[in-house]
């Protein structure tokens, strides 16, 4: 069934979009990532203009994150105190990101900047996660191997302004979560993603949060950051396509519910190894675009040079 999108101004197959939303929603529910880093490139691929893809992707992430958070709330998997601290950092980071984005646009290299950010951050995070989860998977297989301690004391625990995060069972300084939130907010602004793929590993490895609250808490923060992004895009560039978003959401919410149930059955190590492979795959795909000679060297954009 063909459907004309009023803002994107293209005709697309409605079932294709529903399916796309479903698959991304499934992964989003399973891993606790917003799915923005998947949905934005996928929308480019089916012919949606990049500006519309980024803005509408953000809107879709809001819905799938809300859906995911509801499922996590029932499991008491959201640390609200930590969520608010991350969000405070996130908004500051996002403001900085918007400023840098505008600077790059003026320099005329925003595409390259976004692509390089994808390759560098996804590649780095993916490789780190893959190595770490592979190691712990192998350790778990070997009987009699030393058990990894739940809390590893590092420099993170020596910082001032300590705060109690009851749901996470942590008593740490607010500075690391603020910085993690800011980094995620910054990336959300320049890459058009929720930032779960970077926040989840940061929460586990840097803050030492227990895996059961990581997904819910990251989703909680992502809701607000992407909601902010959606409204900003709608106001500044009118690029949010409600019709496209609704289709993605309908597919996505169903996928997210199923995904979050499948995620509960899998072991944390398996979950992490799968997520790391997915992140690496996207990174390699975008790197290939940069390294291989494109079949069409020229591109046409309506509108003037920035």
């Amino acid at each position, binding site marked *: 069934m063909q459907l004309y999108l009023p*803002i994107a101004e293209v005709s697309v197959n409605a079932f294709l979009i529903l399916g796309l939303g479903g698959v991304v929603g499934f992964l989003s529910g399973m891993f606790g990532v917003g799915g923005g880093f998947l949905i934005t490139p996928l929308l480019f691929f089916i012919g949606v203009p990049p500006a519309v893809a980024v803005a509408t992707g953000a809107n879709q992430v*809001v819905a799938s994150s809300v859906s995911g958070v*509801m499922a996590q709330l029932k499991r008491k998997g959201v640390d609200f105190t930590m969520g608010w601290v991350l969000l405070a950092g996130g908004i500051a980071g996002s403001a900085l990101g918007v400023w840098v984005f505008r600077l790059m646009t003026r320099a005329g290299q925003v595409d390259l900047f976004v692509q390089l950010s994808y390759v560098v951050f996804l590649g780095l995070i993916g490789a780190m996660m893959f190595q770490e989860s592979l190691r712990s998977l192998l350790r778990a297989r070997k009987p009699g191997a030393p058990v990894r301690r739940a809390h590893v004391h590092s420099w993170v625990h020596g910082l001032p302004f300590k705060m109690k995060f009851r749901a996470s069972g942590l008593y740490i300084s607010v500075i690391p979560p603020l910085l993690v939130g800011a980094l995620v907010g910054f990336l959300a602004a320049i890459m058009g993603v929720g930032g779960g793929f970077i926040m989840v590993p940061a929460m586990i490895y840097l803050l030492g949060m227990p895996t059961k609250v990581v997904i819910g808490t990251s989703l909680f923060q992502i809701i607000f950051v992407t909601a902010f992004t959606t*409204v900003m895009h*709608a106001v500044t560039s009118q690029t949010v396509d*409600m019709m496209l978003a609704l289709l993605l959401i309908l597919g996505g*919410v*169903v996928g997210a519910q199923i995904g979050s149930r499948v995620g509960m059955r899998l072991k944390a190590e398996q979950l992490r190894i799968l997520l790391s492979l997915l992140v690496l795959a996207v990174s390699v795909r975008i790197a290939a675009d940069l390294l291989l000679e494109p079949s069409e060297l020229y591109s046409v954009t309506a*509108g003037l040079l920035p």
Partner: protein
Amino acid sequence: MIRALALLLLLALPAAAQQEQIVAGMSQNRVSITADFDGSEILIYGAVKRDAPRPEGVGPLEVIVTVEGPSTPVTVRRKDRVAGIWVNNAAVRVDRAPSFYAVATTGPLNHILSDTDNLRYAITIERAIRAVGITAEADRAGEFLLALQRVRTNEGRYRLLQGRVELTEETLFRTDVVLPSNLTEGEYKVRLFLLRDRRVIATQERVIGVRKEGLERWIYNLAQDQPLIYGLLSLVLALVAGWGASAAFRLVRA
């Protein structure tokens, strides 16, 4: 200004050549973009009206039909390999390029149309793209213009339909022009030309209005006129859908 110039030239056409005139019609003069819009086919037809018998000793009659969508400035960028990666390097700004352009003819353009009349009426795709003062911006600006045509032809935006106008008895003609699904809203200008001996002897203009209708119209207008409300509405929609689906799933499992 170009239109005014064309009109002036039209008035200056020799009286003898004006013996033949175009009477034209179209299957529709408006295209509504609704939710299930997937392109549209327009039939453009007409007849040649003569005050006198068919002139003697002149070449055969030829017909050209052009359909032109709203023009916008465009930027054409070229990727180059810089430090091993392909990045947008050089760019050229084209002042005005139509978002859609189709030329349908009775025969090969270079056989039926002279260069001077092409220049005068801007009939071919190259002429329809108005590039003023782009040479200063990049070396070999011509390559960028060719690339613009190539990219838009591949997108189905620019179409050269040589020999696709059917002409019967030098009197009746008809052609079909397919409008793609990625249409831009606005006025689509349809121009019809009668030619003899590679010279334009009569012209006619029609307009097709392409507009979004119904829900499409409402959404588009809201996004343009009330962006804040639109953005918040999109959020509410997302929240309701997200919460609703999870509540529905809880009910199903309970």
